[in-house]
């Protein structure tokens, strides 16, 4: 007699798993990383390698020490490490970024409870850690201004690794949205709010649209863990990110830092947005 498997429904599921989502994001960051290595040379390569290595090593160490299941293969640590390297200047010594990556995964991710539980984006937290600890080393050589279309393709005034080619970030980010690996609500509202507000306040858009800003829109802001889950909440979150970015950028004149600080603050407000945008079920509630 044949035996049959008995298991709870659903018996057919979408093939997309956390692994797909994370490695998809890593793959989307590969072109910009290659462009950065082409532009900055071995300094960039060293930083990217050190950052990923730091993130993976500390993840391995923590999971071994606490006897958790090893989750390196899900790509989250690699993704955090790569993202951190892209928002740091190439002149940063590799050991510093190695330490920062350890901070990102060790404190930013695991101290808060691992994947799915962190309040602040680990890479952003590590960026703040670096900026506070070695402020001098974190100062970018130049501030990018994308004044012509060629700057969108290769930005010669790039300060951070991620600034070298805004269009690569944009294209891969949009590809992620088109493949439904990233949801459209936050990036669209974030981008629109920022551009509209910047134009209204009289700041040139060429100051705003930089590689780091696009990384922020398409990768940091869409980090699902640190965003509200409600549909309306995500739209409000996108608008909030935009408003804060312009507030920082307008008054400090630096939209690159403005983006990163705005995102960090938005992360903090995300749960508040979520609990205030709980949807009502279809058909309404008869008696409460």
């Amino acid at each position, binding site marked *: 007699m*044949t035996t*049959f*498997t*008995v*298991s*709870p*429904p*659903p*018996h*057919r*599921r*979408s093939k*997309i*798993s*956390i692994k*797909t*989502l994370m490695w998809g994001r890593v793959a989307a960051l590969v072109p910009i990383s290659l462009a950065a290595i082409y532009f900055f040379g071995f300094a960039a390569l060293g930083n990217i390698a050190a950052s990923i290595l730091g993130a993976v090593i500390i993840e391995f160490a923590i999971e071994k020490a606490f006897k958790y299941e090893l*989750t390196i293969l*899900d790509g989250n640590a690699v993704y955090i490490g790569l993202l951190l390297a892209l928002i740091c200047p190439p002149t940063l010594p590799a050991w510093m970024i190695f330490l920062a990556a350890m901070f990102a995964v060790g404190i930013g991710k695991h101290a808060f409870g*691992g*994947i*799915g*539980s962190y309040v602040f984006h680990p890479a952003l937290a590590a960026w703040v850690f670096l900026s506070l600890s070695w402020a001098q080393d974190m100062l970018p050589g130049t501030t990018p201004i994308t004044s012509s279309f060629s700057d969108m393709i290769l930005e010669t005034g790039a300060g951070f690794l991620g600034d070298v080619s805004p269009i690569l970030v944009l294209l891969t980010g949009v590809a992620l949205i088109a493949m439904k690996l990233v*949801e459209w609500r936050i990036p669209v509202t974030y981008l629109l709010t920022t551009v509209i507000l910047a134009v209204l306040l009289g700041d040139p858009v060429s100051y705003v649209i930089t590689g780091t800003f696009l990384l922020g829109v398409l990768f940091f802001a869409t980090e*699902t*863990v640190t*965003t509200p*889950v*409600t*549909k309306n909440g*995500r739209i409000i979150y996108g608008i909030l990110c935009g408003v804060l970015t312009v507030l920082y950028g307008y008054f400090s004149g630096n939209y690159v830092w403005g983006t990163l600080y705005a995102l960090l603050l938005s992360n903090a407000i995300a749960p508040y947005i979520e609990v205030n945008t*709980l*949807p*009502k*079920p*279809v*058909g*309404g*509630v*008869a*008696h409460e």
Partner: protein
Amino acid sequence: MSAIKLDKLPEKVILPLKQHDGIACAPLVKKGEEVVIGQKIGDCEGSDLAYIHSPYCGTVESVVEMPNPSGKRVLSVIINPLECADSVDFIPEKDATPSRLLEIIKEAGIVEYYQKPTYLALKPGKRIDTLIMNATFPLIANAYLDSLDKVLKGFRLMLEAGGISRGAIVIRADDKESIKAFKNAKVDGKPLTVAPIIGKRHADYYFEDSEDEIIVLAGGKITYTPTMMNLLSGDVMGRKIPLGYEPADVHVAVCGVKSAKAVYDAVYEGKPYLENVITVSGAVNRPGSVLVKFGTPIKDVIEACGGYKGEPGKVIINGTRVGVAIYSDESPVAKDTTGIVVQTKDEVLRDVSSACIHCARCVDVCPMNLLPGRIAVMADQGMYEKCGEYYALSCIECGDCAAVCPAKKHLVQLIRFSKLQLLKMCAEAEPAEVTE
């Protein structure tokens, strides 16, 4: 496309004495007794009942507990069928009064696709102005197109029996075969109106314009499963059902294609509810719809479809989304069976659930506009009141959230558990209110 018929007599027929989610019947036959086709073998008393009749003739082997398509063991009558056509006298009653019609429907043991006996669905004791026929299961609807006139007559009888003035038949907009058949069909010599549901143009809009009693509506590309009453009523009639209410509360009754055909058979031919069309899909050699008599073991149905293709790993009753994976293909087909899906060994899922990454995919697909991930987390931690605040009771258990979850969490089961706990808490709280 007509349904495949079983040409071989099964070795053994297992007739569960409870074939819907209601009261179990008591057996009327004993071991060794002879039964004929159409003989009533299960009787019950109460309000939510469906009598059981034998679709085969033969001898009763025993009355024991046997596996049931719902996955549980149920007291069943086991019959050794014989090649004979002896039956009880089927007495057609063409000019029955509405109350007599309802009586015939009850006597025939007809059950709706959503586990409710038809006589209760038609007369729930509340004012009903529209009867919706859910024909959005394309494979099943197509299998009945050959006898469409009978289905339509049965539908008229149901309207008559329930004293309902209007009937709306809902089909899928992409089910071309059904649309064509309904366009050519006639009721009382008049062709049927086939109209689309666009935006706010619901059934009421078309009923106002025409004098027809029955219209056909091509809805979206949704198959309304048994739990999706709220959406069916909302999409077709524009009447959404608030939490805690039934379709009858918004003056809507729902029936299926199968029961309409069964009502026709019961009234015009005097036959009780004996057979049904079910769909067989997945890893079988000839998938399609099969006309099956109740009590036929699933393995005989699979055999009629050309047998298993490859090594079977899982046999699922009633769909891959919310269906039950059965442990034995000896289980019979019952009145509440609509489909069988066979998966090969390789297709069987072996996912391990991991932590939620709050990707909100469940929120985006939820047809009821809930936050499935959040409810599941709180159900997991035993915070059932909190689940209630997140409207866990509105969940229709369609399984969409669990199907898209990248963390492979068992969302449906967690939400279902929180619903059970919430209902239990409500039941415990109620007597206290009465004493106040």
